[in-house]
């Protein structure tokens, strides 16, 4: 590993993508993720890569579709309103079974909303977003180091399962600086016999397509895709458990909300409250098993989110509503304070003794 440097989360994503072998970036500027595009604009020309600022987000995602079809590592990044614009293209990429990385550094919504951090695109990221039956693998970093590590992981998973992946961050994670260590290891070499790169007259041509006019064939394709999704749900769910060993109450939070929640958990422990934290790292697949196990152990859950309550539904599903699940949230670009989370923990404990 190289020496630790201070980097903004956005820059760490960009540098990690380059380390992962991504040489093609297409984007359109929007706060609070513009540093990714700026970094790529500076670096890509020097390493024989492509940086292209498209005329719109719709163009950018379709350029990603093209490069993904050619079998090269490719990415785009944006923030909430821009990611909404990309949804049609993301659905096509999923429908054509192509690997690509989409980064969403979320800001408050709906509409143009604001530019301050938010997690209110959880539903969009984890439940499809575009039309049709599909999923993205969604990774939620909670530190600048994870912004880098999960970017590399996202490329690897995308190639492994031939599907688009999303890094779901927020304005705070994008703008903050922390020490980060980037790996020196070369990117994974992946064979892509399906890619359209010219046949050289040696084989029949590959076709990249998401159009299936025969419903039986489309159904079969969707069934096959969902077999892959089932394997991903089985194998790839990731989460961090903090102080859960003897916990009687469980806080669930991801990304920046988990950072705030961790402070509150430590403060609650000092008061003698047995509280732990489960931090989903993959939002799809959601770490259902870990939560189901926690449901046998704890008296109640608290979902801490920068939205009006979206992940809370997945917690209820994963735990089959066996225990109460309460919500502690801020929205519109506001971030809960550790004190607010602590108050919610105290209330949960009082009401579920």
């Amino acid at each position, binding site marked *: 590993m190289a020496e630790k440097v201070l980097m903004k989360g956005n820059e760490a994503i960009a540098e990690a993508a380059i380390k992962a072998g991504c040489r093609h970036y297409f984007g359109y500027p929007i*706060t609070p993720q513009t540093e990714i595009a700026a970094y790529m604009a500076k670096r890509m020309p020097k390493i024989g890569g492509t940086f292209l600022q498209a005329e719109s987000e719709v163009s950018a995602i379709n350029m990603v579709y093209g490069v993904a079809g050619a079998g090269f590592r490719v990415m785009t990044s944006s923030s909430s309103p821009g990611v909404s614009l990309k949804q049609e293209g993301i659905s096509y990429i999923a429908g054509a079974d192509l690997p690509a990385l989409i980064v969403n550094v979320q800001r408050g919504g709906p509409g143009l909303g604001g530019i301050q951090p938010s997690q209110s695109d959880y539903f969009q990221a984890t439940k499809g977003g575009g039309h049709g039956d599909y999923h993205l693998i969604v990774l939620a970093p909670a530190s600048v180091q994870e912004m880098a590590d999960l970017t590399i992981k996202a490329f690897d998973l995308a190639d492994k399962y031939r599907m688009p992946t999303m890094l779901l961050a927020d304005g*705070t994670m994008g703008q*903050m600086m922390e020490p980060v260590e980037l790996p020196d290891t070369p990117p994974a070499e992946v064979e892509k016999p399906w890619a359209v790169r010219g046949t050289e007259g040696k084989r029949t041509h590959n076709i990249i397509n998401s159009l299936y006019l025969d419903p039986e064939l489309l159904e079969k394709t969707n069934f096959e895709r969902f077999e892959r999704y089932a394997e991903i749900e089985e194998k790839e769910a990731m989460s961090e458990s903090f102080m859960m060993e003897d916990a009687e109450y469980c806080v669930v939070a991801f990304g920046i909300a988990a950072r705030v929640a961790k402070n509150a958990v430590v403060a609650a422990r000092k008061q003698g409250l047995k509280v732990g934290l489960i931090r989903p790292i993959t939002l799809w697949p959601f770490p259902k098993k870990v939560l189901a196990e926690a449901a046998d152990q704890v008296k109640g859950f608290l979902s801490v989110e920068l939205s009006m309550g979206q992940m809370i539904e997945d917690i209820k599903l994963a735990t089959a509503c066996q225990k109460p699940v309460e919500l502690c949230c801020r929205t519109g670009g506001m971030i809960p304070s550790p004190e607010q989370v602590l108050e919610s923990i105290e209330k949960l404990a009082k009401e579920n003794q």
Partner: protein
Amino acid sequence: MTTQLLIAGFGGQGVLFAGKFIAYKGLMEEKEVSWLPSYGPEMRGGTANCSIILSDEPVGSPIVSNPDVLIAMNLPSLDKYEDATVSGGSIFIDSTLIGRKVERTDVKAFYIPATKMANDAGIPTLANMIMMGKMIKETGMVRFDDVVDTLKKVVSAKRANLLELNIKALEAGYNYNE
């Protein structure tokens, strides 16, 4: 041991740069570090602030709402964050730009005419580093050694001529006695 630092002032005063210097110094002293800027539709002359946390343990929330150490580079910043500073904390004030005193009696207050000192020394853009020098002296948040190595990390190679001026500013603040 965790120290939460909030540096606040106008855009253009080098608030973010000063924070980055402290964060890098912390990193080089092998502390856990976070640096978070306010961001928004801000411009030169608007408000700017940044949260820096140095700790022996992994940093939880990177947002500093109750600073142990507040650097106020203008009056709106002092008005906004004086009450938020923790009891027993320290407030450093650029007394060239802030006419009033700290009203709290449960915090330590330091008054440094940093903007005037910077102007007099011919380094008008480095009042921020004068403030850092004094802050380091009084709080020991980081050590006052190897600052050149740290500055090399935060001053771009193209502006290497500014290294010495930054050191001059840091020393002026460090050696300033009210």
